[in-house]
């Protein structure tokens, strides 16, 4: 079989993961419904918080004041991709360990890359849908308007951002395979990135040493650029490429380290004979 045909066969396996996780999500109907309800509640909560915060305390976008809900909504949007990339892979590994399906899964002739992608395939569809629902709810309930012209550039930005967090996620999965409860380690990384990201409050309120970290945090850069694109009017592709130029090497780094760590973790498990243990 040609390598193109083999790649097609491997890619087709992603649909199987997608279907599996969709059916599992639907089997937990209450959780599925409550997640949708949570979206609405989140909007209402941020709407109330927005009334308490003076817009002058927030950074301007394109020279204009923005409300707190406008400020936070973009942070939530980008952060949800962070949660997806970092948390989901580790959670998936842990779930497979606990369900006893990890060994049968790894015994199939499926490439590790497809397995790793398969673990997030459902979320790659669900999170954007959920995000769109969130944005719609914000638009309707909180009367926030977004710049439609900034949407394509934001999508490109998120597409480049995703491999960065996915690399961290695979690294987290490697720690889960090795230490079993590695999600705690991943949670720390997620928290550190989130706290210094400026998603929910301006980074200027952080201590100066944390501000220095925040300035180098790819999540902060992505959120800032997305704000300019979605809430401002003049930001365009030029701002996107500047952020992309930083995200691409960062993504290469996290993916390289993550994939290598994952392979090493599996090799170690094979040496110890504990692949299916939990």
């Amino acid at each position, binding site marked *: 079989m040609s390598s193109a045909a083999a790649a097609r066969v491997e890619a087709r*396996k992603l*649909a199987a993961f997608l279907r599996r996780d969709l059916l599992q999500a639907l*089997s937990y109907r209450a959780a599925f419904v409550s997640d949708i309800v949570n979206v609405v509640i989140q909007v209402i909560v941020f709407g109330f918080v927005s009334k308490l915060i003076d817009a002058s305390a927030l950074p301007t976008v394109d020279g204009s004041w923005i409300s707190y809900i406008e400020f936070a909504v973009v942070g939530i949007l980008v952060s949800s991709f962070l949660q997806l990339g970092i948390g989901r892979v580790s959670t998936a590994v842990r779930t497979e360990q606990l369900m006893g399906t990890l*060994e*049968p899964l*790894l015994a199939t*002739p499926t490439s590790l890359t497809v397995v790793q992608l398969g673990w997030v395939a459902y979320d790659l569809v669900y999170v954007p849908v959920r995000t769109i629902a969130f944005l719609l709810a914000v638009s309707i309930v909180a009367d926030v308007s977004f710049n439609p012209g900034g949407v394509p550039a934001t999508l490109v930005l998120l597409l480049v951002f995703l491999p960065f967090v996915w690399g961290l996620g695979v690294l987290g999965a490697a720690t889960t395979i090795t230490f079993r409860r590695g999600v705690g380690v991943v949670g720390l990384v997620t928290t550190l990135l989130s706290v210094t990201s400026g998603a929910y409050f301006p980074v200027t309120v952080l201590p100066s040493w944390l501000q220095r970290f925040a300035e180098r945090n790819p999540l902060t850069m992505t959120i800032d650029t997305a704000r300019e694109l979605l809430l401002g009017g003049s930001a365009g592709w030029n701002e996107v490429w500047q952020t992309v130029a930083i995200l691409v090497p960062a993504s290469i780094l996290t993916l390289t380290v993550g994939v290598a760590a994952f392979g090493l973790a599996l*090799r170690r498990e094979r040496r110890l004979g504990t*692949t*299916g243990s939990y």
Partner: protein
Amino acid sequence: MRDDGYLMTRDLTAGRTAPLAAGAERPGDESVRVNDVWRAFGEREALRGVSLVVEAGEIHALLGPNGAGKTTLMRVLTGMLSPDRGSVEVMGMRAERLVSRGYRRLFGLVPSGDRTFYLRLSGLENLRFFGRLHGMSKRDATERAMTLLAMVGLDDVARAPVNTYSHGMQKRLSVARGMFADPPVLIIDEPTHDLDPENAERVRDLIRAVAHERATAVLWATQRLEEIRGFADRVTLLHRGEVKVTSSVPSFLAAVPDTSYLVHIRAADGSAPTAAACLVVLGPAATVDEAGDEPGHVVVTPVTGSTLGDALAPLLAAGYDVLGVREERPGVERAFLWFTREDGP
């Protein structure tokens, strides 16, 4: 391999009873070779120089008690565990480091664990998922899943969640998953140890058919000694990580000392005879020993070639009543104890 990239180890469209295609495995071809495999977990040596060969179309029983090293050997074969020394080959392909996708296509695995499925999905969905990971299209995977579910007797619950299946049903589903891509080698770890006799026989029938009709090499780990008779072609007895014996099942059983029976006897006058008194009556057809302090109970061991009926006939003719008979140990269990005793062969 079909033109559409459908990855199958062998062509299933030929049907279960169709003759083997040219180039397919033939009975007698070597399918699995384990060569001097050593594996330790810390100080404990789980495998000590294990070697064995499984041929195409052969059901090879890997017999041993708990902790003998059966599961460790199977995990080495599936690439889930690396050996400290030695090598394993499946269909001539050697398992090294992280085993390749090509290697993983060569075997079907039926693990020993209880939880190996997505419990909230149906049996059909589980099989379809694993089938698609073998590269099948959704349609082919569904057809194959339905065929296998019927073969293992789960077609009526195909769409029910696996968490509603009994333990035996999950085991049968696991066998179906192992057979899904019609691999040339099936690695099956204690599939019947907690099944009722009917379900166990059903699984054995299925595996027997696959081995003989598809020339599939089957490595069947078990500690159920009685099930190898009439099922397996060859047996390897593993004990404390070492191969004690590999032979055909008839040879294995023939090497065992004769079976003994605990017999409760009453003499014509109503008294409880001693072993010595019985031996006088029985003559050379059997040996007789006392069975502890229980009056009227003796251990009768018919000589090779004699049955218990032959042995007891003179006693009955002399007016003795046989009040009860119990086999001292099942024949295969005696074989097991014979081969694993410290001064054994």
